[in-house]
């Protein structure tokens, strides 16, 4: 007779224990960009909603930014690195596939012998990572997990491409996930639209390009239903949601998703993240960065019910409801 394997069970519930973020120091305004390409401040503000964004320096790497955001999240949670055992770094802009970001980031933060892996779901990466982190803990595979969305998008954008150079920026956002007495992270609603894979792509393995209208159409029509599914999975109604944080792809996409949710019962006083205005589109960093900035500004409070939804290249998407720490 075959031996019987044991499978583990962890705590029944998880929550976000702390949040942190990091942005490079260098501010790049729309006027700065208008000196190197045919664009202007008014057009950028109307088209994408960005006022300014941050670019990393040449010697400032994705892993450097990830370490800073990770440390900020640990400090916010009041935890020492040694209390975390797993590090997930959602990203799509590591300069090479080998080595990954997570192992070295864990080491530099001081998480010893961490379970460590990167996760590429482009701009849906943070929500994918958060879902995985919560499930790892509830299955007993991890005790506390650090999820760090980090990107150096300026590495993969043509610096004089007037469509994309105005949008993408650099930074990192992180959350520490751990056990909880009450559920603080709802089930993830995720999926993909691989039939639309050619709408966000890289030319010559070098620079990102998008079929702008196709991506806009998809994001403004298909993402609100995913977000609503996440609300339903969490056992809530749209009117229970206090804060909406869509991936900060473009302010017009954010507004369109919020508008659709309001037609389905989300409240008029829904707080909607607009962090893209001063941060640009930072892919997997955008949602945790927005949450961190909003908490610090006081627009999101401890205990608020937050609906996050990421979406991007793949095309991939993921969202969940969380309780703000």
């Amino acid at each position, binding site marked *: 007779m075959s031996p019987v394997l044991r499978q583990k069970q962890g705590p029944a519930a998880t929550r976000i224990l702390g949040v942190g973020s990091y942005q490079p120091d260098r501010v790049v305004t729309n006027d700065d960009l208008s000196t190197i390409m045919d664009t202007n401040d008014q057009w950028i503000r109307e088209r994408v909603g960005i006022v300014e964004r941050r670019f990393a320096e040449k010697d400032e790497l994705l892993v450097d930014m990830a370490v800073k955001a990770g440390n900020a999240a640990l400090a916010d949670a009041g935890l020492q690195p040694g209390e975390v055992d797993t590090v997930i770094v959602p990203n799509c802009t590591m300069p090479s596939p080998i080595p990954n970001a997570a192992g070295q980031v864990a080491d530099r933060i001081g998480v010893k012998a961490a379970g460590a892996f990167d996760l590429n779901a482009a701009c849906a990466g943070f929500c994918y990572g958060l879902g995985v982190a919560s499930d790892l803990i509830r299955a007993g595979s991890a005790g506390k997990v650090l999820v760090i969305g980090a990107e150096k998008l300026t590495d993969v954008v043509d610096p004089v491409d007037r469509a994309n150079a105005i949008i993408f920026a650099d930074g990192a956002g992180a959350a520490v996930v751990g056990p909880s007495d009450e559920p603080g992270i709802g089930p993830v609603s995720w999926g993909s639209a691989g039939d639309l894979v050619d709408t966000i792509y890289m030319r010559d393995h070098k620079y990102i390009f998008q*079929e*702008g*209208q*196709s991506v*806009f*159409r998809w994001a*403004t*029509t298909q993402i609100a239903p995913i977000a609503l599914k996440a609300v339903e999975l969490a056992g809530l109604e749209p009117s229970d949601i206090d804060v909406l944080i869509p991936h900060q792809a473009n302010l*017009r996409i954010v507004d369109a998703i919020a508008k659709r949710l309001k037609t389905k019962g989300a409240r008029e006083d829904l707080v909607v993240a607009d962090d893209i205005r001063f941060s640009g589109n930072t892919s997997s960093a955008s949602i945790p960065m927005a949450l961190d900035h909003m908490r610090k500004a006081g627009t999101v409070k401890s205990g608020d019910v937050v609906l996050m939804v990421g979406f991007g290249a793949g095309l991939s998407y993921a969202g969940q409801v969380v309780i703000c720490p």
Partner: protein
Amino acid sequence: MADKQEILSGLAEIVEEVAGVAQDDVSLEKSFVDDLDIDSLSMVEIAVQAEDKFGVKIPDDELANLKTVGDAVDYVSANAK
């Protein structure tokens, strides 16, 4: 099926809602981009709302051919169920 005048006024409502253009300005000969100053993302929003309102499909490659308000009215008229 709506007649062209109904389509035009339905479209004018959508254009006003999406792009803030006064409905009276939305006349058949006007070019969306050059006369009404509507950008390519707003065109997508207009197409999505027109799809719902008129029961037509307006894929992006068809949308590219709709230069004037008249083009859009003709398209909806020819394709509405």
